């Protein structure tokens, strides 16, 4: 056991997930993620990557085991406490998940749901300071000129950056990104991955990304873990990762 300066931000303890139809989603997952890490999860589709990610903000429930965030078990959270947990964990999706017909500004501001009372959210009564923050967030993803544009008028890469700006409004300590570049072309892929990397390095946000591209994983990750059929089959810091290792994760057997 090597001594770490800080406690891990996320810890999985023997986590299992079995779906209602009997399919095994996750099998005895047991590992820790230190604060500020850029972690990439690789594996075939259906290996449990999405499930793993979504257990961290309880979008999916686990069947047994325990997940701790900042050393607090998250399994018991209900209602308000659960929403507070999610509020500090940003999430990025493959399909961007914006409200297509709303303006970029409105989409970004919707990241504040956890911080405002419901009625203010519904009426769109966000403070001037928070509107300024929205501008700042858009500036960080270089999209200020598009602030009043409708979300569906943007390209895929731009939409994903709007989604990142929305996440920034949450002031997250963790960002979960589920195949964030799977529906993007190579150039916009680089934009989005660079943005995530910047947030990781400049703000110290812990970033966990699911990727199916091995090349991207090696380029951006501090550490790569591999899943196969719900099991953690690989876990190495980036310096130890070899191509042969990664090929083995993608082997079907």
């Amino acid at each position, binding site marked *: 056991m090597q001594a770490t300066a800080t406690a891990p931000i996320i810890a999985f303890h023997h986590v299992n997930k079995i779906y209602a139809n009997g399919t095994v989603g996750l099998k005895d997952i047991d590992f820790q993620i230190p604060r500020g890490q850029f972690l990439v999860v690789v594996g075939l589709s259906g290996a449990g990557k999405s499930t793993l990610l979504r257990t961290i903000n309880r979008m999916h429930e686990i069947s047994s085991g325990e997940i701790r965030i900042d050393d607090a078990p998250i399994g018991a959270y209900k209602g308000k406490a659960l929403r507070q947990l999610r509020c500090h964990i940003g999430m990025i999706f493959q399909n961007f998940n914006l409200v297509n017909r709303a303006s970029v500004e409105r989409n970004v501001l919707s990241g504040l749901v956890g911080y405002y009372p419901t009625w203010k959210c519904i009426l769109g009564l966000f403070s001037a300071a928070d509107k*300024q923050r929205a*501008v*700042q967030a858009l*500036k960080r993803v270089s999209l*200020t*000129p*598009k*602030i*009043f544009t409708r979300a569906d008028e943007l390209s895929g890469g731009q939409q994903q950056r709007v989604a990142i700006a929305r996440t920034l409004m949450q002031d997250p300590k963790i960002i979960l990104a589920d195949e964030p570049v799977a529906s993007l072309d190579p150039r916009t892929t680089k934009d989005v991955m660079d943005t995530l990397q910047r947030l990781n390095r400049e703000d110290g946000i812990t970033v966990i990304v699911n990727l199916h591209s091995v090349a991207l994983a090696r380029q951006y990750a501090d550490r790569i873990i591999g899943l196969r059929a719900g099991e953690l089959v690989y876990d190495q810091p980036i310096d130890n990762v070899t191509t042969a290792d990664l090929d083995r994760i993608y082997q079907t057997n």
Partner: protein
Amino acid sequence: MTNSTLDLPKRPWRQRYHVAAIGWTLVLGVLLVLSSLMTGANLGTFLSNIDQFLALLVQMSHPAWSYLHVILQPLYETIQMAILGTTIGAVLAVPFALLAASNLVGNRLLRGLIRFFLDLVRTLPDLLLAAIFVAVFGIGSTAGVITLAIFSFGMVSKLFYEVIETIDMGPLEALKSVGATKVTMIWYAVLPQILNQFVSYFLYTLEINVRASTVLGYLGAGGIGVYLQRSLGEFNYSATAVIILATLVVVLVIDGISNHLRRVLL
């Protein structure tokens, strides 16, 4: 002004003051006020008379089941009217649909005229047609069948030509290249491609016509509607309830059969 606001793009005033949203809300509001004034709609009248409405509902919740045997025959008649009306309408619709399909008829003028004619037919509500045909043919199911035939003609012809426009033109060109006539081409290359869809739309129209035919009799065009009118006229609401329930069962059964057949077909 802080630094960051300077980077923001200028919004045109239309967007800045939400002109579109406010405009539409105003239009909607004005139309709502006008139409409430014009129809004299207000919740108060309804609520102050609600006891009468409830009394009616109470009567209807005690269906006079003995009435059932009286209405069985007219119920059959209703279905028969719907079947015949839909069939006549659908058969008439086929040539018009072929002429209105843009991939079969190159002549835009002819196609436009046919489509305009079909649009005109579709504007007329079923009960309106029934009122006229009762005046022409007298009270009875003839008026009902003709009403339903025209009503379904308008509906089916549009569904049909939209299907025809989606067909694969390959077989058609193959036949054309060997010198087939238009009729041969339609018989061997068009009809086989669309037959299933035609039958499916036919059944769908039949469902709608069964619903429609239950009220046509209200104006004298045969079927169960005649008894509906009679019971309502006599304030015999428990009989009305039986009629409505029986109609409901018939409609649901026909819908079920038709849905099943359509699933098998497609």
